[in-house]
C-alpha cells in the first residue's frame, strides 16, 4: 500500500466535492489562489479543475521557482557557462528556460558549454571534487524547500576547503512573495484566500504565514499535493470564508509542524542572509524577499568570484507571464499561448516547468477548444 493512496481515493474525493458544493453560499464566488506551482500542476493533472463548482475559482499563483527567476539572473548562468568555461550544474527544469535571444542552458550545452543536470547541490559538489582543475558553479534556485540543501552544500564545501566550487544564489522567500502579492493584489485581482504551499511549509512551519493572514485578513490553508489534500484545503477555505475567519490552518499535518524544521532553519541562517531587495519575474522588486551568502561564505558566491552584474533583459513584448504569475490573467488569455509559445519551444518561463501555470494548462489540454497541440505532421517511426 502506497502512503499516498489514501490521499488519492476517488470515492473520498467525490464525497468531498459533494460536501464542498453543499457548503457554498448561493450567489457567492470564492476566488482562491493556490500559491504553489505544485498545486497548480496537481489540480490540472488530476482533472480536479473540471470538477470544482463554478463558484470556486482557482487563481494560479507565482509559486514556481523556475517561473519567478528574472531572465537576467538566468543569463548570468548562461554567460558563465559560455564565456568563463565553468562546469555549470543546474536542476533539470531550469535547462530549457529561454534567456537572451531565446538561448537556454540546453542550447548553450549544444554549443559546447559544459552544462550538467544534477538532482541537487550535493551532486554539484561531487562534480567539483572530481574536477579540481575546473570551476564548478551550481545555479541555486528555489523557495525554502531547496534552500537547506544549498546551505548544507556550501557549509560542506567550506569545511573541505574546496576552492573550485561556488553557487549563483537565487533562493527566494515565500512569505515575502505572499506579502508582495497581497500589497498589490487588491487593485489588480481579488483573492479571497490562499491554498498555502506544502513543501515550503515543512521547512518554515505553518506559523510563518500568520502575519500575512492577520495583516491582510485572508485565510491560508496549507495543503499537501494529492487530490484529497487539495479538496480538503479548498473546503476548509470555503468554510473559513463563510464564517468570516482569516486564519492559518494546517491541513498538511503529516509533514508540516507549526514551527517547521528548525535544524534546516538554523543551517539556512548560518550560511545565508537576507538581501535588501530582489527582482521577481512578474512581481517586480520585493524587499527582503531573497537570500545571499553571508560574508564568511562569500568565497563560494559566484556573483563575487566572477564579478557578475545582473543584465536587465525584458520579457518578450507579447508574453504575459508576469500577469499569469500575479494571477491577473489566465494562461489561455495570452496570445502566444500554444501558438508561438509551447513546451517544445517556450517563450516565457511559465511554459517550461511542469509546475508553471502555462505548461500545466497546455499539458492537461485546458486549451482544447482554442488550440491544436503542435503534433508533427507525419509521425516519426519507432
Amino acid at each position, binding site marked *: 500500500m502506497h502512503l499516498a493512496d489514501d490521499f488519492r481515493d476517488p470515492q473520498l474525493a467525490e464525497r468531498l466535492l459533494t460536501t464542498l458544493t453543499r457548503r457554498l453560499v448561493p450567489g457567492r464566488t470564492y476566488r482562491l489562489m493556490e500559491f504553489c506551482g505544485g498545486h497548480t500542476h496537481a489540480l490540472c493533472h488530476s482533472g480536479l479543475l473540471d470538477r470544482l463548482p463554478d463558484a470556486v475559482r482557482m487563481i494560479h499563483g507565482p509559486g514556481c521557482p523556475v517561473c519567478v527567476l528574472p531572465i537576467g539572473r538566468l543569463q548570468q548562468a548562461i554567460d558563465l557557462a559560455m564565456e568563463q568555461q565553468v562546469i555549470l550544474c543546474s536542476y533539470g*527544469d531550469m535547462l530549457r528556460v529561454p534567456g537572451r535571444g531565446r538561448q537556454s542552458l540546453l542550447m548553450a550545452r549544444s554549443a559546447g558549454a559544459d552544462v550538467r543536470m544534477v538532482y541537487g547541490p550535493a551532486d554539484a559538489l561531487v562534480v567539483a571534487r572530481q574536477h579540481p582543475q575546473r570551476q564548478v558553479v551550481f545555479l541555486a534556485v528555489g523557495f525554502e524547500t531547496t534552500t537547506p540543501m544549498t546551505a548544507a552544500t556550501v557549509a560542506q564545501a567550506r569545511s573541505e576547503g574546496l576552492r573550485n566550487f561556488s553557487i549563483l544564489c537565487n533562493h527566494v522567500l515565500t512569505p515575502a512573495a505572499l506579502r508582495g502579492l497581497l500589497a498589490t493584489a487588491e487593485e489588480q485581482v481579488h483573492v479571497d484566500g490562499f491554498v498555502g504551499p506544502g513543501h515550503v511549509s515543512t521547512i518554515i512551519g505553518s506559523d510563518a504565514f500568520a502575519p500575512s493572514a492577520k495583516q491582510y485578513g485572508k485565510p491560508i490553508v496549507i495543503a499537501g499535493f494529492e487530490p484529497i489534500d487539495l479538496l480538503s484545503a479548498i473546503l476548509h477555505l470555503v468554510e473559513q470564508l463563510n464564517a468570516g475567519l482569516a486564519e492559518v490552518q494546517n491541513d498538511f499535518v503529516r509533514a508540516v509542524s507549526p514551527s517547521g524544521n528548525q535544524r534546516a532553519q538554523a543551517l539556512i541562517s548560518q550560511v545565508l542572509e537576507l538581501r535588501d531587495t530582489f527582482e521577481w519575474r512578474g512581481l517586480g522588486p520585493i524587499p527582503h524577499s531573497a537570500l545571499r551568502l553571508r560574508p564568511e561564505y562569500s568565497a563560494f558566491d559566484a556573483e563575487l568570484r566572477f564579478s557578475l552584474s545582473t543584465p536587465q533583459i525584458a520579457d518578450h513584448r507579447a508574453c504575459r507571464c508576469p500577469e499569469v504569475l500575479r494571477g491577473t490573467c489566465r494562461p489561455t488569455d495570452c496570445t502566444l499561448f500554444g501558438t508561438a509559445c509551447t513546451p517544445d519551444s517556450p517563450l516565457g518561463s511559465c511554459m517550461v516547468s511542469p509546475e508553471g501555470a502555462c505548461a500545466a494548462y497546455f499539458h492537461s489540454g485546458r486549451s482544447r477548444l482554442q488550440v491544436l497541440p503542435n503534433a508533427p505532421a507525419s*509521425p516519426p517511426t519507432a
Partner: protein
Amino acid sequence: MPPHRLRPLDLQHGVVELAHGSGGRATHQLIVELFQRHFGSPQLAAGHDAGILPPPSGRLAVSTDCFVVSPLFFPGGCIGDLAVHGSINDVAMAGAQPLGLTVGFVLEEGFPLAQLDRIAAAVGCACERAAVPVISGDTKVVERGKADGVFICTTCVGIVPSAVHIAPDRAGPSDVILVSGTIGDHGTAILSQREGIAFETDIVTDSAPLHTLVAAMLDADPDLHVLRDPTRGGVAAALNEIAASAQVGMQLDEAAIPVHPAVRSACDLLGLDPLHLACEGRLLAVCDTRSAARVLAKMQAHPLGRNAAVIGQVVSDPLRFVELRTPYGGRRILDWPAGEQLPRIC
C-alpha cells in the same frame, strides 16, 4: 611481437584498441575470441560477408535500430539485450515472426574488453532465448572520445503471416486499446542509474522480446489493427503517433493503466509522468471491440502479458486528441512529451 603470433585477448584487463577495427589480424581475433563465442549461428560460422537465409514465403518485415543508451548497464539488463529486443520488437509490431538479426558494434578505443564481453554475452543470450540467430555482424573502432563506450545497431528481418495487416492507420472509432503490462519500468530503471540523479529502486527494466506474445495475440485475432511498442516518448508518444496516423482521437481511463507502485513513487519524486517513460518489453494494441476480450485473455495467459489491461477506446475526433479520464472524473489531454524528460526542482 610478430602479427601471426598475437597473444590471446585479455578479457579481464584488456581494452579495445584501434587495431581491433583495422580489418587486420586483431579484428579477426576480436571476432573469433570474443563475438563468436557468444553468437553461434550457422550463418556466422559459414564466414561469408553476408548471412544467407532461405527464401521466405510471404511478406518480409525489416527494421533497424541504433542503441546509444547511457548507462550501458542498468538494473535487469544492458545495451546488448536491449539492442536485440529492440529490433525484434519493431519487427514483431508489424505482426512478423523474426528470422534473424544483424548486429553492428561501434566501439570506443580504450573500452574495457571485459565489459564488451559481457555485452556480447548478453546479445548472444538474448538471441538464444528469443530463438532468433545473429546472421551477420560488423565491428568498427573509433578513437577515444569519438563515441561513448559502445554503440550497437541491430537490424531484424521477419515474415508477416498472410492474414495479418497491422498498420498504424487502421485504428478506427470504437476500437479497443490494450497495454501488455506495467508502463515506465525501463525508463525508471535507466533514470535510477543516471549520473547526477541516481536513486535506489527495486525496479528492473522490462526489456523483453515480444514476438511470442504477438503470436499468441494473433492466434486470438489475426486481424489486430495496430501494434506499437512504447519505447522513446512512452505510451504518450506511441498513442499520439497512432492517433495522428489514423486521424482519430482516443479516450483512456487513467485508473486502468497499470503502473508499478515503485515507478509511480519515482515519478512523484522526480516530477515525471510514467506515460512519458520508455518501455522496452511492453506493447500497445488496438483491436476490434468484438475480439478485445479474447485478445486480452491470450495476453494475460502469456508470461509477458500477465498484467495486460484494456485502457481505453478509439473515438472519432478531428483534433486527434488523446484524452485521459482521471480517477476524479476530470479530463486531461495526454500530449506528446516535450523534449528530454527533465526532473523538477522540488
